[in-house]
């Protein structure tokens, strides 16, 4: 089987404007989630807002950029730059993007203008901004990627599935290089939607804590460049990690609530281990989905305990959601990028805000302050509305 290498990383989120900055933010355990006056709130509430969304490198007539698209292009630019992909290799590369929101930020603005009796904004074009497919188009157009472009829209596992699909494309010879990841901007629909479900914490979230009170939303984009390991080495690129495998399952249980017995999540973790040729005892770290909601965190802990048992040799676990918020369609890719940074620095940050572990969430949590630990293999978990479970298996590249 073809080994799939990660040769480039890119990220933009509230905690950092690049993957390089994110590495520092994680090492210093400096969160990007802050209390902001946002939308119609009269008091500040916690959110992972990107203060400055990088502008497009060139303004093209009729381009109609979106906030989600601009975030995606910025993260993709860093990943491509690090990979060194250029010329015909870049022109032949494919892009698989994940996005849950896509152009909704712009569409809802247009919609509310109309409902308030104003005409359509000249800056708005439905077909060029709203459809999810425009996220991968934006990235492909910005960098001249002439390969396949596909956008997956599966809520909070969108970009995790994008990376999984890219691995399958490379393994089956359908692509030589794939830019895979995801992007989502904040919008009112998701903001007030999650509030209507009463799963948001106005303070910074505390995943796995017994006093946790919900999640924080954030916005972000993250991409990785994937290619066959041999090919990366042959063109002189430095493999940053191996994307060893993935597991994808569905709960078939409930639209929003996870299966409390975690059967789907367990199967996804086992499938990722199997697909990645990874033994349980090799896994030293799990980057948890860890949203901070009561149901998700206890379900996820159940799944991890079920697969790895409850002992000191079980993998260390932490959630980075308090660093950058739950970034929905970008979350899986952002956390995969973060996991690779942790493998390569040998430092595992703790879950910010975790002070008193909930009995239902007992795991080998990374201790407060983080820990220095050489880890060779890690998992990155993602779960989503509709009972979707996707887990990535990642290996450190020796040397």
């Amino acid at each position: 089987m073809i080994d799939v290498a990660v040769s480039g990383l890119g990220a933009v989120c509230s905690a950092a404007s690049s993957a390089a900055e994110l590495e520092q933010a994680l090492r210093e355990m400096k969160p990007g989630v802050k209390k902001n006056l946002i939308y119609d709130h009269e008091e500040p509430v916690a959110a992972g807002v990107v203060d400055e969304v990088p502008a497009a490198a060139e303004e093209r007539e009729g381009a109609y950029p979106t906030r989600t698209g601009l975030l995606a292009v910025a993260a993709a630019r860093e990943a491509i730059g690090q990979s060194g992909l250029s010329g015909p290799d870049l022109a032949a590369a494919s892009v698989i993007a994940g996005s849950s929101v896509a152009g909704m930020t712009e569409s809802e603005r247009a919609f509310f203008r109309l409902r308030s009796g104003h005409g359509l904004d000249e800056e708005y074009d439905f077909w060029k901004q709203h459809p999810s497919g425009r996220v991968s188009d934006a990235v492909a157009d910005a960098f001249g990627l002439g390969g396949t472009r596909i956008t997956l829209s599966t809520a909070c596992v969108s970009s995790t599935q994008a990376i999984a699909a890219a691995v399958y494309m490379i393994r089956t010879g359908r692509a030589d290089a794939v830019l895979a990841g995801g992007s989502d901007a904040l919008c009112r629909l998701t903001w007030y939607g999650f509030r209507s479900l009463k799963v948001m914490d106005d303070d910074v979230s505390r995943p796995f804590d017994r006093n946790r009170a919900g999640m924080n939303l954030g916005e972000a984009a993250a991409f990785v460049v994937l290619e066959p390991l041999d090919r990366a080495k042959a063109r002189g690129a430095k493999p940053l990690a191996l994307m060893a495998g993935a597991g994808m399952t569905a709960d078939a249980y409930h639209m929003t609530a996870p299966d409390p017995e975690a059967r789907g999540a367990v199967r996804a973790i086992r499938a990722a281990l199997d697909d990645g040729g990874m033994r349980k005892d090799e896994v030293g770290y799990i980057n948890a989905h860890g949203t901070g909601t009561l149901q998700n965190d206890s379900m996820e802990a159940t799944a991890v305990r079920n697969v790895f048992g409850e002992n000191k040799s079980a993998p260390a676990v932490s959630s980075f959601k308090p660093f950058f918020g739950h970034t929905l369609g970008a979350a899986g890719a952002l956390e995969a990028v973060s996991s690779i940074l942790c493998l390569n620095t040998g430092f595992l940050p703790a879950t910010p805000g975790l002070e008193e572990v909930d009995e239902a969430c007992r795991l080998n949590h990374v201790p407060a302050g983080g820990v220095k630990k050489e880890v060779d293999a890690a998992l990155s978990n993602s779960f989503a509305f509709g009972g979707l479970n996707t887990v990535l298996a990642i290996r450190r590249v020796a040397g």
Partner: protein
Amino acid sequence: MTVSVQQFSITGTGLVTSLGTGGAEIKNAIERGESGLSRLETADGEFFAYVVKDFREKELVPAKIRRRMSRVSKLAYCAAALALEDAGVRDPSQMGLVVGTGLGELAVSREFLDGMHERGPHLASPALFQNSVHNAAASFISMGMGMRGPATTVSQGWISGECALAAGELLLAAGLCESVLVIGVDGLDPAWFEVIDTGPYISDRGLRPFETDSAGCVWGECAAAVVICDADSAGGAGVKLVLESVLKGNAEEAAVRAGGRICRGCRSVMPTASGSQLRDRQLESAIGKMFAQKPQIVLPQTFTGASPVSGLMFTAFAAAGIMPEGPDADVLVLGLDEGEGAAALRVQTPKEQGLKK
């Protein structure tokens, strides 16, 4: 660069269109010369579109989930149930599941935003929000049918159906499952017409692709589902698929490259022309460049309207022997996106029998 030619087999189809539900009903309606065009009256005026009316939802969708589902999810569910039945699948629990949709739950999102506008954002509806995600249809299908295998939702503009087939084929090729249920679905929400601002949905003449006096794109609701498995499965319709994109060019060039790889010997073409003058002109030109002799042009959209998942619907039409009619069909389905992408599918149906049951 292209996705190299991928092959798979179709062993079952399920269709819900404005002409009816199920292949036989749709075929009969076409033979009677019926059209699914309907007049819609909204606060913004009068529109015409191809609207699905009765689609056997009470028969095909379990009551326990039906009341929570959006219209788009119900359309998709019905097509999925018909395809599984047609393929003779009794236990879909380990199958892959892929839904393609251009615009997803647009009507649900609009209802949610309307609620926010009218009652204030803090009284937004949780029931609408959870149904607003693109993968809502896949989730209800997964729950209702007990599908626990890999599941995803693809959205890629006007070639969303074709890209869903590509994703389904990828699940097969990667060895994640032995068969995949692939569904394409898009609904209609007239309340968005003003936001979409495409204007000419006002003709009662219906969709007239390639005609010089075409009144423009006329939307058609539909759900189409196919069960796919590896190409060696005997008895199913054989399908070849190419996805293509070009750089700084146009979608016509992509269409020529995609179709050119697999079109030799095809007797007919089903272009996903929508009535949009630019797209139709590009498709017409691409077909002219691919074929020395003009092939038979088959246009189901004149009965059903245009949809971002037309490519998948046409594939199901061909596999089920609806259009082109009967067995032994050899047809090229050609799709274009608004951007610089195109997709081509070649559907070859068995000479004597219908699809494998």
